[in-house]
């Protein structure tokens, strides 16, 4: 693409995001935390409340039916996006954390026994670690950690060695929110299955950035959040194979998830409603569906191409500064737009605060992955994370501002 074509594409994409279009002074580079929302997501939410609002799945009148249709159409759109085989396998939750907790409570209460093992990797977000530790403690099972190498790589050999005949469940992130590295989920899931273990995938950082096909990956469960892929906050998804959902007990109990209730007994609603107790977040689902439409409209070819080009530039810019040390892989494409780094002599919180003064927004801290930080012996780091709407100008600005920080902190180099 010529420079002019890139700028035209930047403009076309950025004009869809009101906060970005309205604030050209901001370089928003904290997309692994949350993304910005496009106009179509905002208007879909508003349209739901203005035109289709009633309690879905319950009322016997036309308006409630419209609300139900809006909600269930959103479910179908998400199903198609993930290539799941049935809408019964798509559960709406609040976020990836809730999706993972659902599995950790429900699946583990039915299938995890004392003496069993759960295997997680050292690079899991706390959301894909703490629910398993709690589940293991409840029944007397053991949580085991699989470590990666310095570049974040987990080999097939290491994975096989970590599995034992007691391993009942493996939980693994597809793209790490710290290292940006991608685990080979399809291979690991196949190995886990051959050993008789179920496979849970944390897709919070992968679903927004690469095409994810749950049937091709053949995972039993996959969790992600809407707000990290331009949807609203407060809506997330759990994909789960029907064979498991049928056998699992409900996670939360209450309205909408029952078929028949007496004083002593109850039968549970059909899938997926059995796992969606209480009035659902219909506007959130509708907003997420609009985000899925945007992804489809722009296309993963374009999204991946843009994020790869921006990622290579970011890697180059950060590497050009002798005081900056990128954590993890030595090749740009392995980072999927996530660059966690340290800057000699400057604490990451100071980096983020000084960049804030330049309207460059990045994350600093432990990134909700403290065991990984301990393993890498870097208690605190700064992180830049990209989305397809970022631009080369923003990354060059980041590099320039980072280059001034040591001077601002009183170093004479």
């Amino acid at each position: 693409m010529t420079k002019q074509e890139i700028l035209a594409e930047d403009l076309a994409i950025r004009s869809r995001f009101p906060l970005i279009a309205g604030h050209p002074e901001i370089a928003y580079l904290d997309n692994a935390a949350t993304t910005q929302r496009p106009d179509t997501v905002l208007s879909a939410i508003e349209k739901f409340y203005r035109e289709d609002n009633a309690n879905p799945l319950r009322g016997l009148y036309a308006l409630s039916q419209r609300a139900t249709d809006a909600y269930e159409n959103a479910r179908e759109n998400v199903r198609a996006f993930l290539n799941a085989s049935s809408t019964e396998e798509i559960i709406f939750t609040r976020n990836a954390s809730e999706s993972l907790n659902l599995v950790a409570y429900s699946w583990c209460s039915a299938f995890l026994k004392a003496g069993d093992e759960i295997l997680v990797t050292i690079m899991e977000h706390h959301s894909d670690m703490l629910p398993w530790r709690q589940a293991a403690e409840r029944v007397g099972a053991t949580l085991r950690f699989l470590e990666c190498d310095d570049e974040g790589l987990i080999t097939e050999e290491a994975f096989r060695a970590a599995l034992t005949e007691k391993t009942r469940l493996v939980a693994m992130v597809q793209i790490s929110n710290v290292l940006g590295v991608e685990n080979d989920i399809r291979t690991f899931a196949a190995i886990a299955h051959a050993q008789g273990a179920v496979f849970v995938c944390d897709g919070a950082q992968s679903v927004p950035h690469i095409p994810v096909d749950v049937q091709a990956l053949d995972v039993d469960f996959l969790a992600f959040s809407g707000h990290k892929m331009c949807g609203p906050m407060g809506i997330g998804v759990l994909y789960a194979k029907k064979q498991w959902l049928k056998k699992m007990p409900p996670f939360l109990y209450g309205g909408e998830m029952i078929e028949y209730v007496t004083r002593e007994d109850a039968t549970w609603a059909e899938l997926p409603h059995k796992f969606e107790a209480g009035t659902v977040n219909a506007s959130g689902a509708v907003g997420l569906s609009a985000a899925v439409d945007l992804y489809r409209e722009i296309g993963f070819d374009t999204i991946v191409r843009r994020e790869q080009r921006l990622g290579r530039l970011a890697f180059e810019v950060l590497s050009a500064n002798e005081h900056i040390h990128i954590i993890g892989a030595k090749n740009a494409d392995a980072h999927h737009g996530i660059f966690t780094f340290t800057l000699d002599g400057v604490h990451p919180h100071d980096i983020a605060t000084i960049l804030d003064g330049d309207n460059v927004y990045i994350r600093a801290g432990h990134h909700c992955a403290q065991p990984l930080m301990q393993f890498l012996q870097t208690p605190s780091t700064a992180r830049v994370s990209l989305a397809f709407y970022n631009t080369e100008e923003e990354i060059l600005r980041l590099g320039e501002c980072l280059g001034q920080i040591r001077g601002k902190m009183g170093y004479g180099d």
Partner: protein
Amino acid sequence: METRSFYNQILTEHNLRPANKHPLEGANMELRGVNPSCGDNITLQLRVENGVVEDGAYVGDGCAISQASADIMLDLVIGRSVDEALHLSKLFLRMIKGKVTDEELEELEEAGALQDISHMPARVKCAVLGWHTLDTLLDPDAENED
């Protein structure tokens, strides 16, 4: 720019060349202070005799604000009575909340350079870490206001 103004020369100087950052020989009081949310930590050591802070020092890790603030604090309180030190720590905590007079600000000497942190709620905990630790060490029974 506002957010940058507290990374001034006073702060960067105390961060890069802290006079009071070392283990203290002959210390008779010690307390560790930690900000669990960001990992900043300091261990404050004092030698207090006859109600006077005769000497003090700290060791720790963390951002420039947490470390420089502790260094500035020790410059201010070494040689003062325990009551004066407590008075100054309370003044500092009030300054961070944006509630001090100009005269009180002068009492705080170099610590007044951290005044603008009151505009950055996310960094307030960094600035007050040393002072909270001092307050708790010298007056363990008092209720710490946040």
